[in-house]
């Protein structure tokens, strides 16, 4: 297994697997944090006994991840909802809390929430009163950097539960060139039972595309793209979805990222997409796809030069060149 193509095939079309390199498939799925999703996709199929037991254990693990994610959201709700601050769940926790198809088998690391920028300090204080603590030292470059340039607070960690929370006030760093309309993200969010909120479906896609393509080096991107596939398949049932997506992508200045994400989802996972929204294929799509697939059957990352190019790109996207130089200089001296 020279790249993650087999993993993508297994997710896209499980019935097409014919005596694959199972050990390689499992290792690649673990490395891409997609074993839980694979277990969901292969459920009920006739499988070698060993694979069935590995996937059953993965489903148990997913159930635990879901419990933990929902519990962290609930504890944040107990801490924040009394303040009246609107609290919007992001990423994996939002999929779980809203019961979207994308939650199935989805692992969740930190709890990510979005709050209005003018109330972020208030939210931080309420979380600290409820047992979360600052993880990085409150002085020093990192903290200053976060507060000045990032779209989130320095992460907080809960002193008893050892789980992290990232409190965002928008979905991209302030230094990035697109400027999403954070006020619109919050104003049009959807309230769940209990008072927590999630983004509008179209905004969820915009955020997932921004996270995949405008804010990182695409490491672990197959999982993020799988989120997009699952979300699109579910949301597209609403006839008003595609026009809303176009409008929201434009409003958040992320039309390019959304178009690219749709083309990549369609290319790798066969996601049905509106081609008018996705736009015409570009030659560079192939590079993005190759980057996403740069993982072999031993779970190792391949294509070092390509990965490095995307790493440079991620910094370039985030920061103007002078600032990038200053950032790297400060990091190097530390």
């Amino acid at each position, binding site marked *: 297994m020279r790249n993650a193509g087999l993993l993508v095939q297994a997710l896209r079309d499980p019935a097409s697997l014919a005596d694959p390199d199972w050990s390689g498939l499992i290792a690649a799925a673990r490395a891409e944090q997609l074993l839980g999703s694979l277990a969901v996709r292969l459920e009920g199929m006739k499988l070698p006994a060993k694979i069935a037991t590995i996937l059953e254990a993965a489903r148990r693990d997913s159930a635990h991840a879901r419990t933990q994610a929902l519990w962290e959201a609930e504890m944040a709700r107990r801490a924040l909802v009394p303040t009246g601050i609107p609290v919007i769940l992001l990423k994996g926790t939002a999929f779980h809390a809203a019961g979207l198809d994308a939650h199935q088998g989805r692992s969740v690391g930190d709890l990510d929430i979005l709050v209005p920028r003018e109330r972020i300090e208030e939210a931080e204080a309420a979380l600290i009163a409820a047992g979360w*603590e600052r*993880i*990085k*030292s409150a*002085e*020093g470059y*990192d903290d200053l950097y976060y507060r000045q340039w990032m779209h989130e607070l320095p*992460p907080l*960690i809960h*002193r*008893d539960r*050892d*789980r*992290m929370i990232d409190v965002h006030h928008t979905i991209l760093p302030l230094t990035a060139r697109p400027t999403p309309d954070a006020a619109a993200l919050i104003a049009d969010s959807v309230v769940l039972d209990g008072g927590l909120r999630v983004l509008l479906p179209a905004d969820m896609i915009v955020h997932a595309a921004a996270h995949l393509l405008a804010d990182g080096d695409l490491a672990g991107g197959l999982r993020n793209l799988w989120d997009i596939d699952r979300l699109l398949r579910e949301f597209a049932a609403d006839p008003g979805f595609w026009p809303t997506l176009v409008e929201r992508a434009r409003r958040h200045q992320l039309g390019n990222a959304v178009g690219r994400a749709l083309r990549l989802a369609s290319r790798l996972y066969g996601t049905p997409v509106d081609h008018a929204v996705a736009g015409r294929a570009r030659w560079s799509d192939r590079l993005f796809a190759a980057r996403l697939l740069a993982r072999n059957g031993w779970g190792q990352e391949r294509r070092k030069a390509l990965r490095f190019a995307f790493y440079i790109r991620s910094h370039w996207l985030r920061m103007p060149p002078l600032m990038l130089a200053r950032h790297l200089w400060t990091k190097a001296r*530390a």
Partner: protein
Amino acid sequence: MSDSEQDETGAGAVMPSRRTVLVLGAAAASTVVTIRPALAQTAGSVLNCEIPVPGPHAAGSYIGADGTPVAAGTPGAAPPLARPLSGEQARVLLRGSTPPGVNPQSAQAYANYIRRLQAGMSGFTCYASLQMPR
């Protein structure tokens, strides 16, 4: 096994017996211990770990007596260690002794630094592996 069955041997069974003394206790006396995920003893057999003091999140900082990173050069604070502590060195520090290669006057600060490590910080998994239930 059903939950109702379990409850008969649990709290439910305690309820009706009047005149049982129930001590509500003082503020300081904790009555709840939560099981935390343990790398515990297991990790000892799993890894050969090290703890940078301080970790990259506070690179260059000195370590105050209470274990928190403070500005470089703070009087009375311990300088950063040039090499990460081995698991064995950390274990000795946590016992209150000074391992070879560590300035005895700084040992307490380093020990407190290790105790304050939390999940997600460099060295935490190593620290967790040194924890033993008493």
